[in-house]
């Protein structure tokens, strides 16, 4: 293995993590402080969840820091953010947000069943996050402003009022039940698919594949049981169920940044991709001349490989293998192994084997 650290400064990751975690903690503290109106409306029942959430955010920040330090990731984020600041780029980002994360069209193109299952799980989880975090971090609370009227207060600003037994209020009280039901349906579909259609998804291990599903189902079921106990069992076993629910949620929050759920943050980088491919100038293959990529991306890839000491140049020329389309790369290797000359018609060069299985400019040729 020719292993090289990503950066010359071995403390870079620690420094950046410490800095980012500090920023996140400060923002979190102030959001709790302002949201709870100077701790006036602090929900002590959710105290355990609060610390797990804080720790989850810290771990997630560290994980995101290490991820964005990888050369290709850093490059793509920078390019994406730069391109976003144009009218065309911004339109692209909003459109992609809708198709990729809203509608998840690419999953529907993979299979209708998987799309349905993923819509249930993803939206169930995302809405659960929204409700849980806003309650746990005290961003949102309900105030009784009249004997039978609640006001929903977000960051200390009253948003709307509702009757305590209105349909809207009942829908809101049970918000987490609705999302939980969606998650149970989605996870059920996923488990069914894994059992009946034993496709060998080789890049996944059993624990990586099944554990998150069981965890989500456990969270949803224990959460729903709280409602069952309160509504129809006169609160029997409530404390035990509450503890079980809290344990499953805390396990989930701490497991989140290092598991299958990690693909949720990754997906936000996917929003940059269509823009990245569409807004660059097309580049032609140095051998056959077809347009196969954007010049920007080829440069970015070469830069990322260079940082990892894995540059793949063509000897005695300014070209790299990434300046050829995939087919010309494959064919060039084979022709040079035959001892044949490889003509790069577009770049107007003649190449041959460098006797070490790479390619080089033909001796006597000029660059």
């Amino acid at each position, binding site marked *: 293995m020719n292993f090289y650290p990503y950066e010359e400064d071995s403390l870079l990751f620690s420094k950046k993590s410490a800095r980012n975690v500090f920023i996140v903690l400060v923002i979190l503290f102030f959001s709790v402080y302002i949201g709870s109106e100077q701790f006036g409306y602090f929900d002590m029942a959710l105290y355990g969840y609060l610390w797990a959430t804080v720790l989850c955010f810290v771990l997630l920040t560290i994980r995101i820091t290490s991820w964005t330090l990888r050369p290709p990731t850093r490059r793509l984020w920078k390019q994406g953010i730069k391109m976003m600041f144009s009218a065309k780029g911004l339109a692209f980002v909003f459109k992609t947000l809708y198709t990729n994360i809203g509608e998840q069209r690419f999953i529907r193109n993979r299979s209708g069943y998987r799309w349905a299952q993923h819509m249930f799980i993803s939206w169930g989880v995302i809405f659960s996050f929204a409700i849980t975090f806003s309650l746990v971090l005290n961003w949102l609370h309900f105030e009784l402003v009249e004997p039978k009227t609640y006001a929903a207060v977000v960051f200390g600003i009253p948003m709307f009022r509702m009757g305590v037994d209105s349909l809207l209020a009942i829908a809101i009280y049970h918000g987490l039940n609705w999302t939980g039901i969606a998650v149970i349906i989605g996870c059920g579909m996923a488990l069914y698919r894994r059992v009946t259609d034993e496709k*060998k*998804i080789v890049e996944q291990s059993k624990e990586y594949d099944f554990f998150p599903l069981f965890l989500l189902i456990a969270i949803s079921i224990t959460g729903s049981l709280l409602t069952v106990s309160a509504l129809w069992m006169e609160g029997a076993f409530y404390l035990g169920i509450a503890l079980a629910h809290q344990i499953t949620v805390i396990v989930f929050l701490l497991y989140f940044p290092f598991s299958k759920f990690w*693909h949720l943050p990754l997906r936000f980088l996917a929003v940059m991709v269509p823009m990245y491919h569409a807004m660059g100038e097309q580049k032609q293959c140095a051998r056959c001349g077809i347009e196969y*990529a954007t010049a920007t991306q080829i440069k*970015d890839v070469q830069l*990322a490989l260079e940082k990892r000491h894995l540059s793949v140049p063509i000897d005695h020329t300014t070209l790299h293998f*990434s300046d050829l389309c995939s087919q010309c*790369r494959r064919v060039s290797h*084979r022709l040079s192994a035959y001892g044949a000359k490889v003509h790069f018609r577009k770049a107007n060069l003649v190449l041959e084997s460098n006797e070490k299985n790479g390619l080089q400019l033909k001796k006597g040729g000029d660059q």
Partner: protein
Amino acid sequence: MAKVLYIDYERCIGCRACVIGCEECSGHDHLSRMFVDELNPGETVAASPTPCMHCVTPACAESCPVQAIAIADDGTVLSASLEKCIGCKNCTYACPFGIPRVDDVKKVMYKCDMCYDRTSKGRPPMCASVCPTDTIRFVDEHEIKSEPPKEVQFKWDFGGTVIETRTVIGMPDTETNRYGFREGDGVQS
């Protein structure tokens, strides 16, 4: 007893059985990950199959912004993980052998994983199973690299960057032009 793919491409007749066989592998979702390229159309009918080279230091995985390309315990470089891959095509451009492809509709990269569901249980990959001319063989790694039947390629030097691959490519015998043999040595496959 790790086994690897050995490609003796001067034996290839361009029948593309490997391309179709690859589609049939259960984990491959009917997307073929095999290439058969015509080397010089119009001048010769010579063709050559190319599977993934399964590099020890894969440029595709190194250039992946979301770490979607995993390497199995036995060194097989797997195809992109379905939930991580964002279809950015960095791997397509980084790979010096021109292997990974991206399905633009499904937004996912797919490449040869040496039929990991089969090879991890000791079965040969699909392409090697169906090749009618023994162009693609599934052979013992140590043996093919230490005592090759002919000149082979598995260490590639690109301007000082050495990439070792697990897949071994047999060089054409341009001295005696006897396919797959050197001076009376038969090939045990």
